[in-house]
């Protein structure tokens, strides 16, 4: 295979594909993905992509930016949020022009609906901002972008797993990848590498995330000395199917669905009197946990795995089948119920990492500590932190993020590779990856399954929706123990070709490292803000903590520093809905 490119993009979700489209005209660009194209997790996004088109009622990008900042509990970099909201509008038109089949208004324009935390006039009332294609918006974005990649002859290397970055001081020179079909490790030289590997929800037991969401890009970067930003902020979506974690889109509530406890009460009246069931996700997840704790869950046993009901029965069959058909299908398949007739049992499910690889507004990865950015290393999408989501992401903004900042990164890469030279890659640059694979194949210890199970349970119970110091210290001790176990873990499968067992063990290492820094970052931040809630520090503390955290691994131990937050547009205020 070819081992020299101008740019390699790791990950074939929305951010990676958009970047590839922008960069591929400028040179030899390849998209590598451990999955086949169109299998990426962008495809599972359901409800919509937020953009102030104003097709149904007045709306402004400025309002979208404000909602994003307030939704993120003021930890959002406001310059980035302004770009997100401004460029979202043209991005949606561009996607439509590429063929994306948006649902339409009666006069043939892109239809829009309500979503949590998106309001008119700085918080007055919910606004119709989410552009959607039934409840398959992510599927349509992923397919449309892949179709454009076919049209533009973008090169794909399917089922290649990134194992290591090749760094030369502040410059990225390429990467080492494992080819699933042959089991071979390849060293690829490249002027630019972009990480677009998505999320890491698989560190938690109950998650909406795909098996593939193991944070590969973040972990590779972390192990090569790149800092990660705001890892303590992880979003639990309030409405996963109880016990399964499968996502039930916020659009169900946007269309009129209501959350109820065992008394049948619309409990959000107490927690968010103005926005009710369309309050941001962090507030609703916390509200559900409070209800469960009071014994108001459906079982009433006060356990964190109890559940509440999402009642969409008043929508009627027609609206359910037209606006949320896939949700209806999930309910029939997995619960044996029709959501137009029976309420859906739901509980919070691990959904989205607000933190990630720190980047500037062009996707260039920050080195931290005021040292500027790496040369030739980019990131966008969920694996990155630019930071437009701050402490809590609003619904629809993940799709906006990957389209807007995926495209920005792609454009910058196109300019960069036009003027950059292919760097020298020292022989033996793949030795770290080779040693790692050899070690896993000769391990004498336990199989990885037990380690993964312990990790997911620990993170869910002790670093979940509501956190407390002593629990997190216990979680860190547990993770240290299973990281030690991992050093002895072994691959059961002796084959070279299609060794998915090896792949899963490499993924497990990524989850372990990310969980370790996540737990440390959560323990360090002694306040409650957005998706990070401490029962022992229940208030937001702007004096001490209105700042991003950066964490590195130094000799395997976390080392923290801070980064300032851009608050140039809106002064932080108490967050009331």
């Amino acid at each position, binding site marked *: 295979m070819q081992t020299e490119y101008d740019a390699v993009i790791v990950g074939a979700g929305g951010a990676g594909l958009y970047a590839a489209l922008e960069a591929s005209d400028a040179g030899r660009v390849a998209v590598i993905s451990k999955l086949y194209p169109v299998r990426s997790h962008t495809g599972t996004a359901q409800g919509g992509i937020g953009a102030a088109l104003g097709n149904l009622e007045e709306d402004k990008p400025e309002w979208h930016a404000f909602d994003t900042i307030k939704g993120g509990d003021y930890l959002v970099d406001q310059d980035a949020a302004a770009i997100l909201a401004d460029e979202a509008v043209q991005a949606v038109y561009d996607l439509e022009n590429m063929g994306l089949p948006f649902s339409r208004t009666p006069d043939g324009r892109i239809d829009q609906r309500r979503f949590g935390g998106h309001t008119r006039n700085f918080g007055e009332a919910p606004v119709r901002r989410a552009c959607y294609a039934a409840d398959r918006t992510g599927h349509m974005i992923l397919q449309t972008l892949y*179709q454009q990649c076919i049209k533009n002859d973008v090169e794909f290397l399917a089922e290649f797993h990134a194992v290591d970055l090749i760094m030369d001081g502040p410059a990225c020179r390429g990467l080492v990848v494992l080819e699933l079909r042959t089991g071979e490790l390849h060293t690829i030289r490249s002027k630019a590498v972009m990480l677009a590997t998505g999320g890491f929800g698989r560190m938690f037991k109950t998650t909406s995330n795909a*098996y593939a969401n193991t944070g590969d890009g973040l972990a590779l970067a972390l192990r090569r000395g790149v800092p990660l930003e705001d890892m303590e902020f992880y979003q639990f979506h309030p409405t996963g199917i109880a016990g399964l974690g499968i996502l039930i889109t916020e659009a169900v509530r946007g269309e009129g669905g209501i959350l109820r406890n065992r008394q049948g009460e619309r409990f959000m009246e107490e927690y968010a009197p103005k926005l009710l069931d369309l309050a941001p996700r962090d507030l609703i997840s916390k509200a559900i946990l409070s209800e469960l704790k009071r014994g108001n869950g459906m079982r009433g046993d006060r356990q964190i795995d109890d559940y509440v009901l999402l009642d969409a029965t008043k929508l009627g069959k027609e609206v359910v089948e037209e606006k949320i058909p896939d949700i209806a299908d999930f309910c029939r398949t997995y619960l044996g119920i029709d959501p137009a007739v029976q309420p859906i049992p739901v509980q919070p499910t691990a959904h989205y990492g607000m933190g990630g690889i720190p980047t500037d507004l062009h996707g260039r990865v920050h080195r931290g500590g005021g040292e500027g950015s790496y040369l030739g290393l980019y990131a966008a999408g969920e694996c990155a932190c630019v930071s437009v989501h701050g402490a809590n992401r609003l619904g629809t903004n993940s799709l906006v993020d990957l389209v807007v900042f995926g495209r920005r990164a792609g454009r910058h890469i196109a300019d960069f590779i036009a003027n950059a030279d292919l760097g020298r890659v020292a022989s033996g640059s793949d030795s770290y990856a080779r040693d790692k694979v050899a070690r896993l194949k000769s391990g004498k210890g336990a199989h990885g399954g037990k380690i993964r199970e312990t990790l997911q349970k620990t993170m869910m119970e002790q670093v979940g929706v509501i956190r407390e110091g002593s629990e997190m210290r216990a979680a860190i001790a547990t993770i240290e123990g299973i990281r030690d176990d991992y050093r002895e873990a072994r691959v*059961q499968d*002796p084959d070279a070709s*299609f*060794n998915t067992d090896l792949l*899963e063990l490499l993924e497990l290492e990524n989850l372990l490292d990310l969980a370790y820094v996540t737990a440390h970052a959560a323990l360090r931040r002694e306040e409650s803000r957005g998706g990070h809630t401490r029962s022992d520090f229940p208030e937001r503390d702007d004096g001490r903590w209105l700042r991003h955290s950066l964490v590195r691994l130094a000799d395997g131990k976390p080392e923290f520093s801070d980064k300032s937050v851009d608050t140039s547009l809106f002064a932080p205020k108490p967050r009331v809905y």
Partner: protein
Amino acid sequence: MKITFAIQRFDPEKDSSPHFEDFELDLAPEARVLDGLVHIKTYLDGTLAFRKSCAHGICGSDAMLIDGQERLACKTLLRDLGAAEGSSIRIEPLKCLPLQRDLMVDQEPFFSAYRSVKPYLINAEPAGPKERKQSQAEREEIDDATKCILCASCYSACPVLRDKNPAFIGPAAVLNAARFVFDSRDRGTGERLPALDRPDGVWACESKFRCTQVCPRGIKVTKSINLTKRRIESLNKQ
């Protein structure tokens, strides 16, 4: 309940031909077939090879033959199969695509056929500063086809591909051509005709409806193929 998975195994580095292997499992009737496969891989046999990702029927990774029919392992619950205490469930890889290992097949012929129909919007007319208008009725015409997740179930089930003509581009490729042929915004039908209007294109289809029967997204694939045939006929008359 106690249940047996009879799984087709094939290791290209050791086996000359596939064979079946039984795994005894204890699973709830609500468990997905994928849950059983993951359990085997995690605790019983790490060498079992299969693809998976989203685990709720959207990414299209885990189409396979379950009790003889193409299904997504993540969308098939044991109770859907009528499984009871002591039942055995037969699990095989998709047909019509080269076997790689265990339940993994080479998807490239399927994707290559998909790419051949130019599955992207073709329209050189300037779109203007905003969206192209499309009525709700026009949008509805392509709705069914846009649900396709390219899982290749229809490709595996197609009797033409299985028994007669392995060069047929297959149901999904035609469906995804139709998704654009019937899109009011598209102008590219002429460019797609070389791939569609030929013996290995739409005309290979014999309307046996297997594609429609197995589609895990409930798409009326055969109907879409037939509408495409009619559209090509009417274009050819003009």
